[in-house]
């Protein structure tokens, strides 16, 4: 029985003077069956938020509800959740089958039912051959699947996953990423997934909640986060390589980047005027920039580093004091030390933020 998850102004305050607010008044509404990703840098409170839902961390203020039950003060076992840990946390002395069936055994489910459910989950995860093995005789990827299986077998209302892929190598991670997303769609169980990897967040989540310093920054679909970041933190965090952000003075109708005058939408200009700003944080993604000829309008960039990825290449250089990254065609990239001229690909691909509040303008 899948269920909706609601964080209602939930806070976790670690004792001290003043107390450390690891998660501060988090309000989130995760509809039944949604795959929600909590993402943020380390120390952002994403894991703490997940552990509060699991019952492994106290909720000091506010409440957490699963379905129509208030679980704020319930012990973990009564919350009807299953969690996949970063270290997998398998029981080393038990076989794969016993690992997966442990929760059911404690619940008093009959032996034949446990076997049937374990067999079903094992088939789903391609683990049937390994059921009698101990965890130490498994590869990293197999262990990860056992951890998934342990969660699936319980048929919980909510799956909680705490960076379940970070111990896998890059190739396996991409593969498993797709498998988890597929599995979640098939089971239709509400899932809260914590990661620090924004690529994982973008590719897996129905919605992504970005956290920083215990505060929710924005919770939206991946596309919306990418195209309309609510503040300069989200803008810089989502996307790889990151969005170019630079503080520039406001001129009539736009901003100046080196020699280039970039026009800004009226809404942005109005917003900036209302806030009484003389300068703004201007943001533009690497793929919204292009190289232009000597004579064209553009700004100068001295190439300091070229990252060749095959199809594309990324040029790193400096504009004023700020680093800029430009995506160019991978076949004919400039060389390090080259002086290139850069302009915007099109209008409307720019972002502007208030430098003091960091909120989006327009």
């Amino acid at each position, binding site marked *: 029985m899948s269920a909706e998850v609601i964080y209602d102004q939930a806070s976790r305050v670690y004792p001290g003077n003043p107390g450390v607010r690891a998660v501060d008044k988090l309000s989130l509404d995760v509809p039944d069956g949604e795959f929600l990703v909590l993402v943020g840098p380390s120390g952002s409170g994403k894991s703490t938020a997940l552990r509060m839902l699991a*019952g492994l961390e106290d909720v000091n203020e506010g409440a957490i509800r699963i379905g129509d039950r208030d679980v704020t003060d319930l012990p973990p076992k009564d919350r009807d959740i299953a969690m996949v840990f970063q*270290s997998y*946390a*398998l029981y080393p002395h038990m076989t794969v089958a016993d690992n997966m069936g442990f*929760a059911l055994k*404690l619940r008093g489910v009959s032996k034949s039912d446990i076997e049937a459910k374990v067999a079903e989950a094992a088939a789903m995860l391609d683990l049937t051959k390994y059921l009698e093995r101990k965890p130490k005789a498994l590869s990293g990827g197999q262990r990860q699947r056992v951890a998934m299986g*342990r969660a699936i077998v*319980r048929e919980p209302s909510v799956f909680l996953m705490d960076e379940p892929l970070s111990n896998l190598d890059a190739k396996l991670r991409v593969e498993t990423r797709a498998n988890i997303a597929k599995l979640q769609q098939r089971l239709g169980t509400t899932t809260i997934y914590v990661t620090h990897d924004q690529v994982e967040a973008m590719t897996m989540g129905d919605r992504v909640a970005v956290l920083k310093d215990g505060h929710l920054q924005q919770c939206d679909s991946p596309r919306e986060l990418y195209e309309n970041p609510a503040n300069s933190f989200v803008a810089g965090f989502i996307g790889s*390589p990151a969005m170019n952000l630079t503080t520039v003075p406001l001129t009539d109708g736009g901003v100046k980047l080196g020699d280039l005058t970039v026009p800004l939408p009226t809404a942005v200009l109005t917003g900036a005027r209302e806030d009484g700003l003389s300068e703004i944080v201007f943001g533009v993604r690497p793929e919204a920039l292009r190289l232009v000829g000597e004579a064209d309008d553009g700004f100068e960039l001295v190439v300091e580093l070229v990252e060749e990825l095959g199809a594309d290449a990324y040029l790193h250089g400096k504009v004023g004091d700020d680093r800029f990254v430009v995506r160019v065609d991978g076949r004919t990239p400039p060389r390090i030390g080259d002086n290139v001229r850069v302009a915007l690909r099109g209008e409307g691909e720019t972002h502007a933020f208030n430098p003091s509040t960091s909120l989006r303008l327009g």
Partner: protein
Amino acid sequence: MTTATAAPPATATSEAPRRNTKRRYGPGTLTVVTWVLAILFVFPLLWMILTAFKQESDAYTDPPKLFFKPTFDQISGVLKGDFLPYLGNSAFVTIISTLLVLLLGIPAAYALSLAPVKGTKNALSFFLSTKMLPIVAAIIPLYVISQNTNLLDTVWALIILYTAMNLPLAIWMMRSFFMEVPGEMIEAARIDGANLPTLLRKIIMPVVAPGVAATALICVIFSWTEFFYAVNLTAARAGTVPVFLVGFITSEGLYWAQLSAAALLASLPVMIVGWFAQNHLVRGLSMGAVK
């Protein structure tokens, strides 16, 4: 992105010295050193075993005879004497005190590692401080107390003292094993629905079992070989094997062959227990040593 380039040299330097050490000393040198040390350690034991099967007259030759007609006279002589009651006392005291140590030490180690509260550090220091007073300094009060409580020359005096003697060490040792239990595994078990007794029995104990076995073995060895309490607080009734062995040192001189036979019999149980526990012991000791 540019920081990625700094990472490889760091790992390279950490691996380089290890490889160099191996090359410099080579496996051959290590083998020789190991053998020399092993022979040094085993030699007295070997001498004891050989002498145990000699006649008293063969035991005194100089240089010692390596080849002689082995005999079981000494061993059967020891067994015919009053060795068995002493052996019984030793076994009883060792087993009961080790069980008591585990019974008291496991919950203590759990509490001090996985469920720490304010004062945990103080408790740990206190346990250790009980080992700091030399036994000699306490023996007269202990003697008087034993006498007043009618425990003198009983196995119970030794059981209490051996339990007290081994408990601090056992708690410290087992605590380090409990600390290695991954926190996420315990959390996983809690989410799976395990309450504290189930958690301890089904999850934590199986994981720390090698460590507990290693601790138990050390307690067995310490209790089995303890001499000072035994010689001072027991006599004929509750004497243990070490006390029995001393009986061979008489004013007329030493009976080497007989003493060796008795010593061999005394060390057999420890050797047998050690043999069975050796895998656990190595795993247990190295498990604690990793961090």
